[in-house]
């Protein structure tokens, strides 16, 4: 048996809620993009390539901002921003590296959508594959982040 786990001041709840909504939307959008573009690479339509770009631009990027800003807010409330423990450092490192992957994936997806509009779905297939790879790397990293945030090692 464990001791009570729910010892958290009430004023941490709202930033935690925003953090979770942002993180869940980010993971959902990344998976949608990866799966849609993987499908497009196997003879999908121009619309699925466009969905990949829009999913990153209008869902994943805003979700990342919500997740990251609320993470900073939470760390500040918990006084973890001065001398952060390892799991907080890991979270920030993964999210910041993830942002670079996200920006790269969005640029690739935008170019793929433009080429696909010109030449058909096959036109941007190389770029689409790059987006799938970048999104997959980010997703694996975010699963590790979820593990670190819930188990709080060290």
């Amino acid at each position, binding site marked *: 048996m464990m001791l*009570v*786990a*729910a010892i958290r001041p009430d004023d941490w709840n709202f930033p935690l809620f925003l953090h*979770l909504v942002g993180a*869940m939307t980010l993971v959902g959008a990344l998976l949608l993009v990866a*799966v849609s573009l993987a499908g497009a690479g196997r003879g999908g339509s121009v619309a699925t390539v466009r969905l990949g770009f829009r999913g990153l631009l209008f869902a994943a990027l805003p979700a990342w901002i919500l997740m990251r800003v609320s993470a900073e807010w939470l760390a500040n409330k918990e006084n973890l921003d001065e001398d952060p423990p390892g799991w907080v450092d890991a979270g920030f490192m993964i999210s910041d590296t993830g942002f670079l992957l996200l920006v790269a994936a969005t640029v690739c997806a935008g170019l793929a959508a433009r080429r696909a509009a010109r030449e058909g779905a096959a036109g941007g297939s190389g770029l689409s594959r790059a987006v799938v790879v970048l999104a997959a790397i980010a997703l694996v990293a975010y699963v590790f982040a979820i593990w670190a945030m*819930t188990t709080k090692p060290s």
Partner: protein
Amino acid sequence: MYDWLLFLHVLAAFMVATTAVMYTAFAFGASPGGLAIRVADVLWNVGGLGTLILGIWLALYVDGYEIWDGWILGAIAVWVIATGTGERARVELAEGGGRFTAVHWVRTVAVLGLLVLMVWKPGA
């Protein structure tokens, strides 16, 4: 043990939320593709079962939580609503039903309600 239960419970919640996000794109008119729909539905099934089973396991495992606590019973009730509307949304999408968007939004609000209950734990 507790850490792993919590991690898997939260991971299952991410799967459920991922399905809600993917179906939201479909509700906004995105052309989903068969692979995306299949992945979303598998995540909904695995995540749904995972959140329920691991959530009940956690409630039994952690001192201070009881399975009959109001917020846990409330969460189970909302989970049932989310599951019912989720199944309806899947059928509506597959059949091109006119009520797909409405049913999907009810399911999405239920998923958000579950998150609110898990974070605030009213009465705990």
